[in-house]
């Protein structure tokens, strides 16, 4: 039992990171119907930004405390990653809007390759690491067994939960969120109500990137290493999570992320670690056969 709970905790940690990235995929898909393949690499980039910031800030602050450093890394990292994503949208996607459907998709793949190669050139092809952050853990007694929750895992849950709540509030309750939902349903009608659709799309990319940046920082906190190729696998997993939850659905993205994280961890714990990705993707395939629009997705209704 304690072993199972331990795996659940590990899975939830991983799932939170996938969920944060998945939101970026699902939001962009919702609003412009495009899979932003560069999003995984934006996540990887944010992890590198966090790494550089962490080194800079901890050398500047000295022993002032990991807490302040992490807050600063989070805030500056979100801002810089958002800026990157904003520029990517401007340069690679906006000029192709109104072009044929595959054009921005190809452009996104190009962007993905560009970003990972750019980081490879600038930061080198090897793993880059930071000293382990937040090493302590909490041991919980349960009957005759026990399980542990690392402080960094708590931090990841906490930050993810707070940000998701904030994000949900923005989407549901603010004017910006309403305009995003309006653009998602009917871009033409939204612009006829005076909404600047291009700007709303830019802001969607910015918000998606900010959440990916949080995931990037958390990834670094959890694993302490990052590599230029690390955008791909988490990116694909997060994309899978978005599809599993129902692409276009925000709660679906989070649910999908957590499910993929749990499936992967539980499978590695009880069966074979080598086949964890096979398990995750098989579950996706099976879900999509029986629920083509994902767990929480709205079925496509033909407009007449």
């Amino acid at each position, binding site marked *: 039992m304690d072993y199972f709970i331990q795996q659940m905790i590990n899975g939830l940690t991983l799932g939170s990171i996938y969920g944060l990235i998945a939101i970026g995929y699902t939001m962009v898909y919702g609003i412009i119907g495009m899979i932003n393949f560069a999003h995984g690499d934006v996540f990887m980039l944010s992890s590198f930004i966090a790494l550089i910031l962490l080194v800079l800030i901890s050398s500047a602050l000295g022993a002032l405390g990991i807490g302040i450093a992490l807050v600063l890394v989070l805030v500056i990292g979100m801002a810089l990653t958002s800026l990157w994503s904003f520029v990517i949208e401007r340069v690679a996607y906006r000029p192709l809007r109104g072009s044929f459907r595959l054009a921005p998709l190809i452009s996104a793949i190009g962007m993905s390759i560009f970003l990972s190669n750019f980081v490879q050139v600038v930061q080198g092809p090897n793993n880059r690491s930071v000293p382990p952050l937040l090493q302590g853990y909490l041991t919980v007694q349960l009957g005759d067994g026990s399980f542990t929750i690392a402080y960094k895992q708590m931090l990841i849950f906490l930050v993810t939960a707070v940000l998701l709540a904030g994000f949900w509030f923005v989407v549901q309750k603010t004017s910006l969120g*309403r305009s995003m939902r309006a653009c998602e349903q009917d871009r033409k009608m939204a612009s006829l109500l005076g909404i600047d659709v291009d700007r709303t799309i830019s802001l969607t990319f910015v918000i998606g990137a900010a959440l990916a940046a949080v995931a990037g920082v958390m990834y670094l906190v959890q694993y302490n290493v990052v590599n230029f190729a690390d955008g791909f696998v988490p990116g694909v997993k997060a994309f899978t999570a978005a599809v599993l939850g129902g692409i276009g659905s925000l709660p679906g993205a989070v649910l999908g992320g957590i499910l993929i994280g749990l499936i992967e961890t539980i499978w590695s714990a009880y069966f074979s670690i080598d086949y964890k990705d096979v398990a995750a993707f098989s579950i996706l395939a099976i879900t999509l056969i029986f629920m083509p629009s994902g767990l929480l997705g709205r079925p496509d209704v033909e407009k007449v």
Partner: protein
Amino acid sequence: MSMQAEMPLLVVEHLTMRFGGLVAIDDLSFAAHRGEITALIGPNGAGKTTVFNCITGFYKPTVGRIALAHDATTTQTDLDRLTNSGDRWRKADGRGLYLLERMPDYEITAKAKVARTFQNIRLFTGMTVLENLIVAQHNALMRASGWTVLGLVGARRFKEAERAAVERATFWLDLIGLTLRADDPAGDLPYGDQRRLEIARAMCTGPRLLCLDEPAAGLNPKESLELNTLLRAIRDDHDTAILLIEHDMSVVMEISDHVVVLEHGAKISDGTPSHIKNDPAVIAAYLGVDEDEEEAAEAEIEGLQSGLDHGGAR
């Protein structure tokens, strides 16, 4: 003030729209005046919706000028000066003048204050009725909320703007009688209510010109009457002129102050409803169509005439 000196709200001049070799609108000129309901009628395929699409920025016209003057004291000289300046719009002393053919669609709503509805209903069905009306007031709210940042920290300016937005939305909900359904998804409303909600949503953008594409389509007689009342209230109480495309002649004849008739993209008649009904060119346009469309045209003529007979008496 003489009528000649006044520049109408909307002045369309020499509007031509070609799609490849097809001429959808051919050198069309007409005006829509403040405080009036102007109807655009004509047989199917006459180019009515294309005119709307040009006015609201869906299409960029091949040739022509579409000018919107908020203030009656705007002169032809002002218009010529703006046209020659190459600018899209000019606003001085609260006298806005806009060249719609130069403006992107969201600016036409936000700055020139033109709103429109479509033949098919395009509500945001996933949002509530109230949210549909508030999303139409997006620009004022975004400004007040300092791009969401101030709004998130609950600044007073934003609270006030939000209250004003809800008040305006509530006013329109009362007028269209949907107050009790404010929190239901818009997609759950019956058809007639959706039509009126769409008009209310357009009105929440604070338009000076409201373009309605077949607002009475699919309404039953009772709903149609409610619509007429709503449109008259908009014209009389809200400083909003209406331009409407309509096939239901009883609606056209009853509520419009001014009718423009199109055929094959060109204007064949322009005047008061009573002028239109006696214009031989209009009668001919509705009769002299292809054989297979003849029946439809005859039905429409009947509608036209019965509309004329009953329209005045109501």
